[in-house]
């Protein structure tokens, strides 16, 4: 076993993962642990043992993510502080109008509107950065995306609080209707993108991923203004379950990753038409994009599998059977089989290149139908988020 002194001399860090963590890593994790324990004790009357379990699981997940992806520590800490500040100024719903901070920044509606504006701004900035080869614009794009994700996340956290302000029995995690999950989709996709941006040290994909996020923002705004979907409505009995807290977010990590894979597919197809020109402009090489596409589909597939299984477990409890061939379930199966086929061809037949990129793009249409089309066109047990 090498000592740290030895490490200094060699210039090589032989310590294990945990020993390489900084003091800040530990303090950050412990502060969140303290907050988690505080929440678990304070809100104990409101939570059953499963919800307690989910609370601690969320903490563990957060710590895992933060230790592996350092920017997540700052993000989560800032988000927590702002959310606490918002809640402290929010004794009743009227405060959303009367309080300056809530009215313009922190109430769920204000925050979600900020998220929309920032995401819509980030996309052209990223593209400008790519085409003008401007490092400044690229960094600005990243900064806007971080802020937008924070605003969206904050919007849902505050909305959670707002639902309890309406009436304690109405209170619930805000991932229960189409409006809320669109917000979830937007910032989850952005955060996964930011992770890979960090890992692969390229900002060239920002605009492409921004396109899909902007599309979802467009829908969100239409849904808000034309349909008044932002109102918080109470839940029907079938949805009043702790399964909601894990089933939906897991699904949206998958949807986000699939969406990113498809947008990288778009970049791949564009680049394949004139590789030289595009690579000069700063798009990553075909191999890197292919790898990114694979990483996202793999991540999406893993989470989609878990989400579908969680859904089956919940269905067994709420509907009396783990599988009912409900249209949503069937389309999940179709989505799953589709990506399973994609992965098989890549793993065993070694398929790469443009066909796989197109397939990833088509995959997103399948995902979109599963996510949205089923609710619009087909009826079934999942018809909660009808338009």
């Amino acid at each position: 076993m090498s000592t740290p002194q030895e490490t200094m001399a060699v210039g090589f860090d032989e310590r294990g993962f945990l020993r390489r963590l900084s003091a800040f890593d530990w303090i950050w994790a412990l502060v969140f642990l303290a907050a988690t324990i505080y929440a678990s004790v304070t809100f104990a009357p409101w939570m059953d043992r499963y919800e307690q379990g989910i609370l601690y699981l969320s903490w563990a997940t957060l710590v895992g993510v933060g230790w592996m992806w350092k920017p997540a520590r700052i993000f989560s800490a800032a988000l927590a502080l702002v959310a606490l500040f918002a809640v402290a100024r929010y004794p009743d719903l009227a405060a959303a109008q009367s309080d300056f901070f809530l009215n313009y920044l922190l109430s769920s509606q204000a925050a979600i509107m900020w998220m929309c504006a920032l995401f819509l701004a980030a996309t052209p900035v990223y593209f400008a950065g790519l085409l003008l080869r401007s490092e400044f614009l690229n960094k600005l794009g990243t900064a806007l995306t971080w802020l937008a994700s924070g605003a969206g996340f904050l919007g849902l956290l505050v909305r959670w609080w707002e639902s309890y302000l309406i009436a304690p029995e109405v209170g619930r995690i805000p991932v229960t209707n189409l409006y809320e999950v669109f917000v979830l989709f937007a910032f989850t996709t952005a955060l996964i993108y930011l992770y890979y941006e960090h890992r692969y040290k390229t900002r060239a994909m920002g605009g492409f991923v921004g396109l899909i996020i902007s599309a979802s923002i467009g829908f969100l705004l239409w849904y808000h203004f034309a349909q008044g979907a932002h109102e918080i409505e109470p839940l029907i009995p079938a949805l009043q379950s702790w399964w909601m807290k894990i089933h939906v977010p897991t699904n949206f990590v998958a949807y986000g990753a699939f969406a990113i894979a498809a947008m990288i597919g778009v970049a791949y197809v564009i680049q394949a038409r004139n590789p030289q020109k595009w690579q000069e402009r700063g798009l990553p090489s075909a191999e890197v994009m292919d790898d990114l596409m694979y990483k996202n589909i793999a991540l999406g597939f893993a989470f989609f599998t878990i989400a579908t299984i969680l859904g089956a477990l919940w269905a067994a409890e709420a509907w009396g059977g783990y599988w009912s061939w409900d249209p949503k379930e069937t389309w999940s199966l179709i989505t799953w089989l589709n990506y399973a086929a994609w992965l098989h061809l890549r793993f065993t037949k070694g398929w790469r290149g443009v066909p796989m990129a197109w397939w990833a793009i088509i995959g997103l249409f399948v995902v979109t139908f599963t996510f949205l089309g089923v609710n619009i066109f087909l009826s079934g047990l999942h018809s909660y988020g009808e338009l």
Partner: protein
Amino acid sequence: MASVSQEAGAVGRKRQTRSTSAILLNFLGSMNLAITLLVAICIASVIGTVVQQNQPYEDYLSKFGPFWFPIFDNLGLYDVYSAMWYLAMLAFLVVSVSVCLARQTPGMLREMGKFREHQQERSLRAFSNHREWRTTLSPDEVETVAARALKHNGMRMRRKDRGDAVLLAGMAGSSNRIGYILTHLAIVVICVGGLVDGNLMLKYREWTGDLTLETRNIPVSQIGDESRIPPGRGSFRGMVNIPEGAAARVVFLPLRDGYIVQELPFRIEVEEFRVEHWDTGEPSLFESDLIITGSGIDEPIHHTLRVNHPLIIDGYAIYQSSFGDGGSTLNLRGWSLLGDGAEPLNIEQKVSSREQIEFADGSLTLELTEFETFNTRRVPGTESREMEELGPSFEYRLRGTDGSAREFHNYMRPVDIDGRKFFLSGMRTTPQEPFRYLHLPADRNDRPDTFLFFHDALSSEQRLRDASERGARVAMREFGLDQEELVPQVAATGRELARQLLDEGLGSVMTELESRMAGQGEEETRQSLVMFSRLVLERTLWEAFTDARTAAGDDPERELGESDQVFFQDALSTIPALAEYGVPLFLELDSYNHRQATGLQIARAPGANIVYFGSALLVAGILLLFYVSHRRVWCWIRSDGGRTMLLVAGANQRDPLSFERKFGVLGEEFDKRLKAAESTTGRHGSGDA
């Protein structure tokens, strides 16, 4: 399923010499078949989401028509997921996966233990990822450094003495292969579990004639043994609706256009059912108080069953699934629309029952289908988007002697629309279309009486004659005409116009008047004739209205206000629409005795735990497959003219790109370790060869 590509080629060449079963096995385990099946199942699954599954067969018949209905039926499109061809595809997939698994697993397990120590210096140099050093360290020292580096990177290793050289073969992440085995095993396990819980056994017993599908809607006691399954160990999933105060010891298993009765080893009695609502009208909670008794149960179990909280007794899971009407009694008033002045009929009937109504116009069958006490919704037949609580409503079907039926949906209480109150009555001729709502204006007492009496007065020959004669006199007096002998003629005009108004509306009456007067005398005379005719019509209608008010108990001498005028106008615009009502009977809900029923789903799913186990395998397998990368690194160490040469090569088939990066880092690590070792021994001068 995964056959590594080089191996696939080798298998292909050997095919000639193999037996038929080997060829078949080869086909079943081939990647092409697996991919084809995956895509085919995807496409087939779409059908079942486009065609709504397991609906009543009449719905399919009316949707697809008599030509396509039996074709789709034979293809099993109304229950795709248990159609033979669909199950056959799933079975093929399971077989394909199993064959792959059986063929690949032994090789993979062997591979996990192999360190590939047979590599030569030349073959290592052929790897795209390799790096070489020459160092002043002794071979032993280099070996120590290399072993340490491999260990630090989580590698297991084997040392092999190769004469003048030493080979260290390292390997990590071999559990990746376990991932392959687990994922594919999981698919088989999940499908087997699903098969255990599916209704294949039921279909088989029906096919062999052991069971007969019951398609009639009859009491359980009358259902024969050929359609019953006694309590057993098998799996099933069925539904039963139990009214409050009643009990059941069976559930119904739906199959195609009928059902099978599954008997339970216990009896479920429903003491009480409760439902609460949010302001939006959605239910906020529903629950049933159950008492469960049975031979294997010592004490009766008292349990309150809620959504998302099933009750499990001896492997039987009982779920709160839905709720509905359990046979409420409705007291109805049947208003004749024939204009015969008949007293309203008093009808007392239970929901979900049918009864004959003897009626002036003949006999009708009344089928009460639904009854709801809460209806928070947008006001039907208006543009309003506001949700309102509209109170109790009921649905019924009126069937004539010729078998044709119309469906109706009536609200008990009048609904406020723009400050006026109306009774809503929806009508449709087929279940596919939406209800079209008639707005019957409510009178001062919030009753439909005045309107219905008004309609009655206008529809009755005798009473319309009376009203028209009185109306004619009033109109003539107002116009300054005083010729009693003209009254019958004027009254006849009034009646004619009134009938036309009722049938076609006011616009048509005015056009008719204009055209009738055309070419008669001067412009001025024409104008006054039109005005007079109109006055006669208005007075006739007003007289009929006054009769209706009187009949409804209003004081005929009462000073009338604006609201009465509005009522009068609303009534006139509604009456023509009544011509399309189709059945001369309007049912008004007077009072009701509510009795609810709880909808329970009861299932036995012995395969569930198999499926859950398979799911756990699947998740574990996918994580190993994606996030543990199987990689190999070899270190070739030999003396080379007073120095020591170190050749490091590595490979990772699955993820070459990230391995390239990782190998770069590993190279740097070797570099630093070698330099560090040299500095401790005091001999410098190593470097890349």
